[in-house]
């Protein structure tokens, strides 16, 4: 989502090249890449630790897209509020 807000309204499809990063985690669907026993890590076959690794890659890709496509940089104080305040915590 780019920052194309003129009268405060955004129209049409907002595309950012950063969004393409969201395709990277889909590599975990290409099974021939990792359908093998070795090399093992902590005794775990490659098939397993490769996919656990991709949890991290998925988080990283989504996080970068989130950071790079924010409409306006907001200062995010850490959420250290009580449960009841959490709802409004970062709205104020």
């Amino acid at each position, binding site marked *: 989502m780019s920052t194309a807000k003129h009268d405060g309204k*955004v*129209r049409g*499809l907002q595309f950012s090249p950063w969004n393409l990063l969201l395709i*990277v985690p889909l590599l975990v669907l290409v*099974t021939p890449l990792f359908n093998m*026993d070795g090399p093992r890590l902590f005794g775990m076959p490659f098939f397993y630790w490769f996919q656990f690794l991709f949890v991290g890659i998925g988080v990283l890709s989504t*996080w970068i897209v*989130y950071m790079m496509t*924010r409409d306006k940089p907001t200062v995010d104080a850490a959420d250290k509020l009580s449960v*009841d305040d959490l709802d409004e915590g970062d709205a104020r």
Partner: protein
Amino acid sequence: MSNLQWPELIIFTILFALVTVLGFMASRWQRGSTLDHLDEWGLGGRKFGSWITWFLLGGDLYTAYTFVAVPALVFSAGALGLYALPYTIVVYPIVLLPALRMWSVSRVRGYVTPADFVRGRFGSPILALLVAITGIVATMPYIALQLVGLEAVLRTMGINGSGIVGHLPLLVAFVILAFYTYQSGLRAPALIAFVKDILIYIVILVAIIYLPSKLGGWSHIFDTAVSKFDKTPAKTDGILLNANNQLQYATLALGSALALFLYPHSLTSVLASRGRSVIKRNMVALPAYSLVLGLLALLGYVAITAGIKPLTNAATGKADGNTIVPVLFDSQFSSWFAGIAFAAIGIGALVPAAIMSIAAANLWTRNIYKEYIRKNATPQEEAKQAKLASLVVKLGAVAVIILIDPQFSIDLQLIGGVLILQTLPAVALALYTRWFHRWGLIAGWVVGIGWGLIMLYGIPNPANGKQHFGGSALSLGNLSLFGWHPFSGSAVQIYVGFVALIGNLVVAAIGTVIARQMKVFNGTDDTEPEDYHTDEHDKNLRPIGVH
């Protein structure tokens, strides 16, 4: 009922009582001006922040059934069961952008269900009705399956009777759940989800560190699994995929990911959030649960090494594979910690069951009751109707589990996943394009559902001797297009839902071209292009929960 596990039962009951109190208190938590409005009862006031949404969505998507069924599948089939991991890895990158558009347009137009959106986008009550019915039909067995998860735990604690007495604890648990959901709406599962998820994280972390070290390390665990699978006659199991099930693995993961946020209960949690940034943060943070689910799946192998045997369901006389993980905890942990683990799974059944019943009730109220039965229902009447519907839905789920073989629900849920995927063109693609014609979409839905059901019907399961609805893996060799077999002789398997979706899209596209050629009226679009980008702080937003 003779060998009750008292310490486990006591801890389980205490934690269960705690969440019951929370559930009733939730109606006063973050209260809006009224609970007699679907915005409030059904969506918690549309104001949940990042943390609450994280716990709510986590509690909603990673259900008790998932927690018992995925390791059970790994236990019996091996690598194939791990599809849950890529499934929950790819889902967030895929739905991030469409979920934002859905939130925005729903916030502006006051949509509560996916069918509301379809109604507004295409001006078609029929298409909306089809989407609503698909949602309800797909959700109902999912609720019933939460009871299967809960029962697996109860059975391990010794509550394994037959007949109505054996089901009594389940009935009590669900009646309590039904009452506090009736009273507190979506706030109840949101609050309980905190307890559930924290317990789950503790249990899994302990299990995944303690059990392998106790049982000789991961290397030994995987090697025992290999030798077990080598001894079985079936060729589809093993700790790696084989040439024939890799396509099934990938398409099942992708198809499940595409289907997940089409389920009404997932959208309910998304729409309950306060703004777009909440959703974005959650799509980044939710994979923490995927990690947990992946680790949990590995417990299937741990159970093999520990020599676990599934319990026999006293009501049906058949082995209940879903008891693998509870029995593993029971045999390996001290009884008080097993009690905590069982409570985590048990409460893990309540959260999604509550959200699902609310989502189904919202669909009933908005897209059937208000559309066809009482057109000028006030918001108070809508809320009243939805509360009653949520009771009916939950009691229906209990009745199905008690009166019919649980296998029926498992089959139905398998079918439900294929069905809900067929709403993708009308719900998800419509967020981006109005190109599809509403009659094309209806035709695509009919074909996708019909073809999906036919294919599922034709799949046998040699393992349990079932002739029909034996699984979701279709051998490409059996794929038939009006009698023509394009992949004749191939044993490569693919996920049925995926094939049906392709058929759906092709028919929808052809139908669209024809309808446009014939200049059939394509409904009016209530939404404006800027609706899809609205955010929480924009001016002149529709007030929430106002009559």
